[in-house]
């Protein structure tokens, strides 16, 4: 038995002394291999008496397990040590830049359009689209602008040559001055209930600090049997509050005039002047002056417009409103100059553009 104790001490010392995997394996082979010392002792068991065999056998098995466990744990320690040594040589400069990836962006006007689709989609509106090149009938006459009416002059229209294949007002081609013409086309092809929004490019012959010859509009149209001006007020208030993400944004309706609505209104939202001369949308705190800015035009669709589109104004009524997208975008995102929207300055696009992965959606509220 003392042989076993001696062997154990000896092997333990060898295992602990093994400082690499190869020498450890050598120890393993010399102890537990086919010709190993423990294996050799095991082979002598057959020559012993049953009693002796039992005690020595137990002791040898215990030794075998113990040595195997020691080797395993020494092996793990050596591997860990070796890995640590390797890693120490593999250090890289983590402050170096990553491989370049071009950063693209979505234009702020597109962002606004997608926000509008999300907000109005949640209210059950669907998008309608229509052409940029319109005719006099769809852009003016159908919208209750009689020929020669001064209201036509409010909009500096771009004209195109007459279309020889059409006659009268439909031959008079022009660039749409508002997206209301899309509503006309939609109403011509659909009977109520009509619940649509449309947006797109619009054109007016005006180019200065605050006007560009091309800009974008959105319009909303809701026609049914009992849609009232109260719905208009509710829908608009809900919309501007959602769009600007200000729950108590003050909304004010003022009477105004557009030929295609009756009654007509202009809609203002509240803001306050900041000490630095800037503005902040929202309700004025106690003691400060509530300022107002016009944001859109609205009203109950004029019976003549419904009639022009083949909808019975005795049976149906509804509201419409329209808004300039650039202005809304400038207000929401603090963009100071309208003309920069069309400059395509890569610095501007990078700064005011939007991440393509952050598209407006119902989960974020828009």
């Amino acid at each position: 038995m003392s042989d076993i104790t001696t062997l154990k001490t000896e092997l333990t010392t060898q295992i602990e002394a093994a400082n690499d995997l190869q020498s450890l394996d050598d120890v393993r082979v010399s102890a537990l291999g086919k010709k190993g010392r423990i294996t050799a002792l095991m082979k002598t068991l057959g020559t012993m008496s049953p009693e002796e065999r039992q005690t020595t056998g137990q002791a040898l098995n215990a030794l075998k397990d113990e040595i195997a466990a020691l080797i395993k744990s020494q092996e793990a320690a050596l591997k860990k040590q070796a890995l640590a040594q390797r890693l120490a040589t593999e250090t890289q400069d983590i402050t170096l830049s990553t491989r370049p990836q071009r950063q693209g962006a979505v234009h702020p006007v597109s962002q606004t359009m997608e926000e509008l689709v999300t907000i109005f989609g949640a209210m059950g509106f669907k998008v309608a689209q229509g052409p940029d090149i319109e005719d006099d009938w769809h852009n003016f006459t159908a919208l209750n602008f009689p020929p020669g009416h001064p209201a036509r002059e409010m909009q500096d229209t771009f004209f195109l040559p007459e279309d020889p294949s059409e006659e009268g007002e439909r031959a008079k081609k022009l660039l749409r001055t508002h997206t209301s013409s899309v509503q006309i086309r939609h109403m011509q092809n659909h009977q109520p209930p009509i619940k649509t929004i449309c947006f797109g490019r619009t054109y007016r012959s005006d180019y200065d600090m605050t006007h560009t010859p091309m800009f974008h509009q959105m319009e909303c149209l809701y026609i049914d049997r009992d849609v009232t001006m109260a719905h208009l007020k509710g829908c608009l208030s809900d919309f501007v509050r959602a769009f600007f993400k200000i729950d108590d944004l003050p909304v004010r309706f003022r009477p105004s005039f557009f030929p295609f609505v009756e009654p007509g209104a202009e809609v203002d939202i509240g803001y306050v002047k900041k000490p630095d001369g800037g503005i902040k949308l929202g309700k004025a705190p106690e003691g400060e002056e509530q300022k107002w800015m016009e944001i859109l035009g609205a009203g109950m669709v004029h019976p003549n417009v419904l009639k022009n589109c083949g909808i019975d104004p005795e049976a149906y009524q509804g509201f419409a409103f329209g808004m300039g997208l650039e202005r809304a975008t400038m207000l929401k995102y603090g963009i100071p100059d309208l003309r920069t929207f069309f400059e395509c300055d890569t610095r501007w696009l990078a700064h005011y553009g939007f991440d393509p992965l952050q598209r407006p959606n119902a989960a974020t509220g828009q």
Partner: protein
Amino acid sequence: MKFTLSWLKRHLDTDASLEEIGKALTAIGLEVEEITDRAKDFAPFKVALIEAAEKHPDADKLKVCTVKTESGMQQVVCGAPNARAGMKGIFAPENTYIPGLDVTLKKTKIRGVESCGMMVSEKEMQLSDEHKGIIEVDDSYAIGTPMAGIFGLDDPVIEIALTPNRADCAGVRGIARDLAAAGLGKLKPLQTPSVTGQGASPVKVTIEDTEGCPLFLGRYIKGVKNAPSPKWLQDQLKAVGLRPISALVDITNFICLDHARPLHVYDADKLSGDIYVRTSHKNETFRDLNVKAHTFKGNELVISDEAGPQGLAGIIGGQDTCVEEDTTNIFLECAYFKPERIARTGRALSIDSDARYRFDRGVDPAFLSEAMEIFTAMVLDICGGQASEIVTAGQEPNWQTEIEYDPAYCAQLIGLDIPQARQLEILSALGFEVSGSAPKLKIRPPSWRGDVFARADIVEEIIRIEGFDKLPAVSVINDTAVPSGAETPLLTRMRTARAALAARGLQESITWSFIGRDFAAAFGANDNQIAALTLQNPISSEMDVMRPSILPTLIEAAIRNEARGYPSAALFEVGPVFAGVKPEDQSILAAGIRTGSNAARHWADKTAARPVDLYDAKADALAALAAAGAPAENAQISADAPEYYHPGRSGALRLGKNVLAYFGEIHPATLEDMDVKFPIVAFEVFLENIPEAKKKSGTEKPYLTLEPLQPLARDFAFVVDEQTPAADIIRAAKSADKTLITGAEIFDVYQGKGVEPGQKSIALSVSIQPTEQTLTDKDLEGLMARVIDAVQQKCGGVLRG
């Protein structure tokens, strides 16, 4: 439309404050643009007495004045020649802002003498250009009297933005009537004088164009004196921005603004014979009051005498018959002209005048004889003279309408129940006459409200006076529990293509829909298209044709960015292009360009900074197509992009006849024409040419079989003619076994040493997916032989040793 508070109060009996009036105007649809209360700005400037004026000890032209102000004596150094002891002038104390000098006064020493405050001149107060001396005021004004009152500056000026429907509010009385209806006071009754004319007018009137001018009233007044008008009248006109001219002109301007009633005065001695209201003759000439000459087309409505046109009806009078200082006999005109005629002529001749502004919108057709009496009485009062009887031609146009109205319609239209009594109260205050009983009330709008025809107009009148703030707000709720998609299929494509391109590193741009005709021609528009798509009134010749392609404006954007020091731009746009003027000629494209290098130089990726090439543009096109739902993998590719692309470095992607996209380098000659000094690659994706996805009969996605056996890959290199498209080799290789071969990718293209000139070596990796059993070496050898054979047969490819 501008007016003063005191002018408003000539018609409105009110205790309301200026602020209340301003708020009410906006609330009833007469939007206040600006209220200028000049009394506030002028408040510090008050009458003071110069008690002594001694010569400055150190300057010949300066005087040291001892000035008695309401807050004590001040010493003021003054250079004005008229400064003298005993005169009263206007004193500005220290810390006052002087508008004409743009300075705030500080106590100072002038040549060693202390000076505190100043005596001001008219120029310094921006009242006139007068700067010869300081302002002198009458001795009767007490020291401390505010200057604003003395100079008629204490009358606040209100400017409203008038909507085109409210012709009646182009006159102060109309505004007063609206305010009275809104509860801001009482409309004073109109005192119309009655002038007894003596004898018939020696000038007779004949209307030849009764369509353009249904009614004309005239009156001759002899022996007038056309001196400057009285101060009150001048002050009123000046306050609203009109220059006083002479009594007669000022009176017409006053009535025009007071009653929205334009009038005209002729110097009767300059008229040749009688007056004719007629259509102009072609090539007739006329010189207007602003000495501008016009040659008529033959459709203008004119007021003519025997000699020719003396006035452009409703727009502007003529130079030859205008009143002057020495005018003694006059002929007054008060007429009704048809709005459309005036608007058309005014627009054609580009003349804006106060008269046209009102006739365009429609003046009150029943307010002619009253206006004539007011006009005459004012002339007789201010200029003297003796009036003739009124000469009348034509008759009052038929303006009466009657609207059947059910008061319940108000609640039906606007969702607010206003009691019938209140509705009628508002209508009556606005001058509407009501008879009959609900639900069939008969409502007759007043003569000055030609904009009211229908029951919705009636409701508008009621609610704008009642107040839009009283309208309840009712939310619009979606009809279904979960909103169904709001987008059109096209809009979805636009959005997904946009996101895909932005995700590939391109910046979305928005450029004009119009370009110069040269660029339109260079980018595919033919002469007929250019003619049909040319704007008649463009902003400039660079923006005069509707674009056939998005690329030119994007290229111009790249030029601008390069000039700013940003040569590597990647821009795209999702927008319309035009092949004609019909709706179906418009199509929506996603198009983009890349310039410069793909990315900045990078330490770990030596190829990062490579110049952009056609494969970038091809990848952009494929990404946009895939995002927009096109089966891009099935598209045929052909080398027939339009001529503005490089002929050897561009292509088209097609599904059958449908072009899905073009991509490639822009043609060097096109770039040269556009003055571009660097290469540009571009793509155009036709979003509307993508076929609609077929409605799936089962699940959204087909069933996926995951093969349990491992895939294999084998590499080949073939030498082929250099003109052989790589796609042909891939197609040939895949055709060798359509079951086992799942893909083939080219990983090298080589020309040079070891490959004959005119040939190229193409290396490809063929992916193999065993399906039923593991392939044996023999199976594999057979498959590879079939690949080699197919490429040999179809492309003449020889396996490279």
